[in-house]
């Protein structure tokens, strides 16, 4: 199937009545007889859910870390959030796993490549199997979409673990393939709808940290996933104008859509606003990953006053405006006069 048409095609299949004459609809109808009714992702929104009090967050000695390579947290029965262990990679990105009636969306694949180093594929397969068992589905019938928020290795390193998985599509590692994967022709303004089977994910471009980045909004939990362009830590802004426009797009979206949480890919800050320096593998007092729309708005208000490169603290996040290649926040603690 053409990359660009599969979004709309899936919607078309859903529109065919179960008694319809189309061949593939017949086979659908045959299997549908044994399936439980589809899960309703559209009423009584937002679907309730919860984040953990505390994520696993590394340890003072990495080689004595006993935590699993990936922490799996079920936000609600149809939404899992994965996090890589800091002792496996200091980037320790978060990765939502959204379940729909027909397909599953995995956003981000961590910063370790090989399956024998960390079995992300096995963890995702297990999540899908668990979900299918709970909901009376066949895991083979669910399509897995392996996508990522943006084109940085700490978000796609493990993509190849899914190369031999059946019924799986994964995003290519170029800007063209990424934009094409979501069927966009007018990046970043165009907003497309991905139908996971009754559960819509809204996707649009969000460049600024890098050129190739998306924002993802799940209409079921109403979580807005902002990738690395806005997260609880150091937002490294490579392209200020593009980032500013992307922020405006996020704010406009929040003005017109209900958003329960704003969620980024990392946490690099403590509950008290202390910076965890780049590369740290132990964050014992880290802040929650989820942010409020209010915090996003405050950052936006702050950003409007920024006119020069530098590091700015909005109260929630650090905006590192074009400082990635020059400096960071912390100082030499042993400096004396």
């Amino acid at each position: 199937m053409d990359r660009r048409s599969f979004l709309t095609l899936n919607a078309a299949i859903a529109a065919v009545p179960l008694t319809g004459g189309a061949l593939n609809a017949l086979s659908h109808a045959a299997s549908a007889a044994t399936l439980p009714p589809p899960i309703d992702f559209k009423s009584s929104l937002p679907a309730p859910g919860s984040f953990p009090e505390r994520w696993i967050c590394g340890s003072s000695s990495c080689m004595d870390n006993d935590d699993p390579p990936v922490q799996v947290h079920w936000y609600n029965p149809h939404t899992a959030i994965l996090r890589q262990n800091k002792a496996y990679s200091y980037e320790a990105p978060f990765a939502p796993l959204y379940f729909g009636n027909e397909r599953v969306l995995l956003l981000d694949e961590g910063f370790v490549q090989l399956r024998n180093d960390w079995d992300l594929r096995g963890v995702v397969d297990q999540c899908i199997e668990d979900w299918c068992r709970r909901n009376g589905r066949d895991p083979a019938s669910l399509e897995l979409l392996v996508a990522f928020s943006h084109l940085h290795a700490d978000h796609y390193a493990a993509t190849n673990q899914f190369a031999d998985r059946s019924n799986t599509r994964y995003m290519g590692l170029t800007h063209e393939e990424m934009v094409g994967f979501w069927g966009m022709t007018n990046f970043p303004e165009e907003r497309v709808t991905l139908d996971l089977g009754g559960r819509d994910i809204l996707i649009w471009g969000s460049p600024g940290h890098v050129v190739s980045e998306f924002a993802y909004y799940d209409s079921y939990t109403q979580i807005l996933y902002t990738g690395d362009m806005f997260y609880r830590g150091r937002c490294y802004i490579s392209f200020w104008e593009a980032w500013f426009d992307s922020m405006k797009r996020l704010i406009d979206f929040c003005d017109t859509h209900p958003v329960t949480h704003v969620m980024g890919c990392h946490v690099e800050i403590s509950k008290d606003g202390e910076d965890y320096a780049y590369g740290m593998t132990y964050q014992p007092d880290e802040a929650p990953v989820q942010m409020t729309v209010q915090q996003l708005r405050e950052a936006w208000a702050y950003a409007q006053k920024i006119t020069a490169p530098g590091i700015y603290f909005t109260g929630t996040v650090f905006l590192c405006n074009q400082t990635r290649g020059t400096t960071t926040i912390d100082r030499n603690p042993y400096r004396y006069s």
Partner: protein
Amino acid sequence: MAQNPGRNTGFSGSSQAATGRAYPNGNPALGYNPPGVRNTDSAMPLHRGKPVVHDYACDGPAPGSLSLRWTYGSNVAAKNRDPRVQVVQYNEDSFVLRQNVCVHWEAPFTYLLFGNKGALLIDSGATANARHYPLRETVDAIIARWAKARGRRIPPLTIALTSGEDIAQNQGLTQFAGRPDTSIVPKPLALMQRFHGLANWPSGTGRIDLGDRVISVIPTPGAHRDGVTFYDPYCDFLFTGDLLFPGKINIGNDGDFIASLERLKAFAATNPVKWLLGGHIEMMFVPGKYYPRFATYKPFERVLEMTPDLIDEALQYAREVKGKDMMLIRPDFVLFNGVSPDQRTSVWPEGVPNINPPRPF
């Protein structure tokens, strides 16, 4: 570029070591009886009738080799199964201990030296927890073996730090609390000065007598306000801690830093120095490239040892950064003055080949 010759003649720089890459089978031109053979009193006698006492007097540096590879962590730190403390014996009376980089990213070096009347532990590692970093256990085992092989009682142990305030070097001290026959140099600056007899800090030198092996203590503040350098006249080593090591040198006070390097230079002019051994390695084996902070996988590290000509180089470039908030890259070290330890620069030193080393994934 003035590359130091130690780089090109192989890893160890020791004349006939099999790991000297330039001469894997030995170099006949150096002769069969180089000066070092006269300094091998520390080699254990085959048959000993009474407790072995060493003669630490020697013409040149005592022979020894650091030509083993340091453990270098792993891509997934949680899965590392290397020793937590790597022990390399430089010679029978000098040991180099290194903390596993997957226990603590600073991977500091700790040195254990023996004399006829005592042992000296220089620095104590970055981790207090003995289960994660069993320094005391390792040191005790080395000392027990050393004493047994010589038919002697366990020698008293002195523990001194190149800097009392450096949390990458003072954390292991707590493991030695209550150890019998052990004196620990106190951490506070004034008490440390009194212990070493450095009344005119930062001038003068102190001494730690290990029994026929007298270690000099040279005040070298600059990276830390309480920094000291130890000199071992047996191996001809300077243990420079955080002052000068192949890595990112964070200058605490540039005036002190320059004065200390001048002091070291003067000391090296009147005392033979074979190598400088610092507290860490952060440089890669290609010139001017270094590992980021917190890295737990460093497969392409530079060697630990630095030749004494690097004191001059460090001095020259320390004067260049004095009074300026900047970083400066050199082939064997990087100076950070008044800037973030993660500062970056686009300025590449002239004449130094810019080689991109392989990056682990």
